[in-house]
C-alpha cells in the first residue's frame, strides 16, 4: 500500500494529465482520456454497491442505457444539454431507489442474476417501445455546435467533471456513517442489522448512488456520439467490464476504481491496437491472471517493498489473547 497522501497526490497529477491532453496530444489521446474518465465514473459508481456493500451488481449497463435514453429524449424534446443530463441523473436515481427495495431482497448470486435481468428487461422495453424510443432504429441526438476540437474538449471536461463528482461523493461516503454501515453489511449483513444498521435503507442508498451517475454518463455519452440504439446502450460487455475494472484496482477502496478503470482501458487499447484478431482473448487471459494473483486489486501490491527490493516479510497477525 502507498500512503494515503501520496495516493491523493498521484490522483491529482492523474486528473491534471487527463484534463490537459488537448494541450499536448492529438485527437486519439483526447478521446482515450475521455473514455478513461467515463470508465472511472462508472467504476467509482459501481464501487458503492459492489465494493463497499459487497453486492455483485451487473446492472451498470441498465443505468447507463436508461440515462442515455432519458437524456437523448429530453434533448430531442428541446431541453438544453446539461439540463437533460441532470434530468437523466434524477430519473435514474428515482428509478433505482424504487427498484432497490425489491431487488435488494436478493443476496449473492441471486442478486447478480437479478441485476443482469434489469439490463435485459430494459433493453427489451426500449427496443419494443418504438413510438417513443425509435425501437431498433435508435435515436439521433442533436449535435453540439462548434468544431470537432471544441466538441472533443467539451466532452472530455464533462466526463472528468462527472468522475470528480462521484469521487468526491466516494470520499464523503468512505469517511462517514454511510460507508461504515455499508462495510458492516458487506462483512456480515445479519450482524449489521442486529447492531442497529437499517440495512434496507443503507442498501437502497448504495444502490441509488451506484446508479445515478451511470445515468449522467449515459446521457453525456449519448450527446457525445449523437446516436444511440438499444443494443449498444444496454450492452452486456459494459455490465461485465465495470466490475472487472473495480476488482482490478481494488473494490471497496477510494482509489481502486480509478486505478482499475485506467489500467483496464489502457490495456484494452493496447491489445486492440497490437492484436486485432485476438485482443479479446488476450485481455480475458490477462484479467484471469490478475484476479487470480491479485485478489485485492492493484492497490494492494506492496509497492514499497517492491521498490526497496527488501526480502518479503510474512504478515504479522499472530492470534491475540
Amino acid at each position, binding site marked *: 500500500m502507498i500512503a494515503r497522501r501520496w495516493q491523493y497526490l498521484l490522483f491529482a497529477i492523474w486528473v491534471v494529465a487527463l484534463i490537459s491532453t488537448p494541450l499536448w496530444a492529438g485527437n486519439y489521446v483526447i478521446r482515450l482520456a475521455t473514455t478513461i474518465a467515463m470508465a472511472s465514473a462508472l467504476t467509482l459508481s459501481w464501487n458503492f454497491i459492489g465494493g463497499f456493500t459487497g453486492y455483485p451488481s451487473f446492472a451498470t449497463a441498465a443505468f447507463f442505457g436508461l440515462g442515455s435514453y432519458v437524456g437523448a429524449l429530453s434533448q430531442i424534446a428541446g431541453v438544453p444539454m446539461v439540463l437533460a443530463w441532470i434530468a437523466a441523473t434524477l430519473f435514474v436515481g428515482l428509478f433505482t431507489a424504487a427498484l432497490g427495495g425489491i431487488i435488494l431482497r436478493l443476496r449473492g448470486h441471486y442478486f447478480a442474476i437479478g441485476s443482469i435481468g434489469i439490463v435485459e428487461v430494459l433493453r427489451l422495453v426500449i427496443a419494443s417501445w418504438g413510438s417513443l424510443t425509435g425501437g431498433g432504429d435508435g435515436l439521433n441526438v442533436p449535435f453540439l455546435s462548434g468544431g470537432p476540437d471544441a466538441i472533443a474538449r467539451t466532452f472530455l471536461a464533462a466526463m472528468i467533471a462527472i468522475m470528480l463528482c462521484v469521487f468526491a461523493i466516494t470520499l464523503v461516503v468512505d469517511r462517514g456513517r454511510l460507508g461504515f454501515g455499508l462495510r*458492516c453489511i458487506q*462483512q456480515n449483513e445479519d450482524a*449489521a*442489522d442486529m*447492531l*442497529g444498521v437499517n440495512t434496507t435503507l443503507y442498501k437502497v442508498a448504495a444502490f441509488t448512488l451506484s446508479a445515478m451517475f451511470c445515468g449522467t454518463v449515459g446521457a453525456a455519452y449519448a450527446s457525445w456520439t449523437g446516436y444511440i440504439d438499444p443494443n449498444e446502450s444496454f450492452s452486456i460487455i459494459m455490465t461485465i467490464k465495470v466490475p472487472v475494472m473495480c476488482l482490478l484496482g481494488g473494490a471497496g477502496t477510494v482509489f481502486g476504481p480509478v486505478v482499475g478503470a485506467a489500467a483496464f482501458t489502457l490495456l484494452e487499447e493496447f491489445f486492440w491496437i497490437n492484436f486485432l484478431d485476438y485482443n479479446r482473448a488476450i485481455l480475458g487471459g490477462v484479467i484471469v491472471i490478475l484476479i487470480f494473483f491479485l485478489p485485492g486489486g492493484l492497490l494492494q501490491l506492496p509497492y514499497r517493498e517492491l521498490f526497496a527490493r527488501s526480502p518479503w516479510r510474512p504478515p504479522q497477525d*499472530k*492470534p*491475540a*489473547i
Partner: protein
Amino acid sequence: MSATAPILELDAVSKSFGGIEALRRVSFTLQEGRIAALIGPNGAGKTTLVNLITGVQRATGGHISFRGQDVTRQRPHQAARRGLARTFQIVQPFPRMSVIENVAAGALFAGAHSGVAEAMAFAREQLEFAGLSEFADRPASALTLAGRKRLELAKSLAMQPRLLLLDEVNSGLNSSEIDGALALIRKIADRGITIVVIEHVMKVIFSLAERVLVLHHGELIADGAPDAIAGDVRVIEAYLGEKFARRARSVANA
C-alpha cells in the same frame, strides 16, 4: 433497582416452523436491573426465544413488550436502537475490520453517537472495560475464541443497551476463561443493565442468576430461584431423564 414496571414482558408467545412448534405459549416478565438465566436442553427453544425478542424472527402468536411498548413485530435494527442487544452463540464479528471498529459500529448505529470519531472514542472506553485495549487495532479475525466472545460483549455494551441477552457467551471456553467472562458479566450488571444469560454451563447460572427460567420442548416448565430450580423434579427429568427424577422424588420423600 426498585423499578416496578417490567422491562420485558412476554404474553403467551408462540413460534411454529411449519408443523413444528418451537415455542408454546411462553409467558414471563423481567424486572429492570436483574440477572436472569434461561436454561434448557438442546433444542428447547432458547435461541428461538432470543430471536423473537430481538426481532430476528417473528412470533406466530402472543405479544412481546419492551418497556411498555409492543415490539412483537419489530425488525432487528429497531430492537438494537430501542436498547435490546444480544450476543450470538456463534460469534459474528466483522472479520476485516479492526477490533475497535467492530465496537465503534455498535456505538454508531445503536448507541447515542452520531459521528464516527465520537463513536471510536466511546468504543475505546468499552474496549478498556472489556479488557481488550491492547488488541484495539488488530483485525477482529486475529482474536482467539475467548477474545471474540469478549469482543461480542464490548460491541453489545457500545450499543448502550437496557437489556442484554447473552446467548451462550461461555460455550467453548475453558474454566479460567469462564471465570474471566463471569467477572465481566457482573461488571456489566453493576452498570444497571438487565441481563438474561442463556446457558448450558451450570456453574455460570448458579453463580450469576437471581432467577432461572427453564425451557423444555418449547414450554416454560419452571421459573424461580436457582436453588429451587436445582431441586425441581420436572427440571431434573428434562435434563437427566425419568430415572433420575424418580430417584430425586424418593430422596425428597424419605
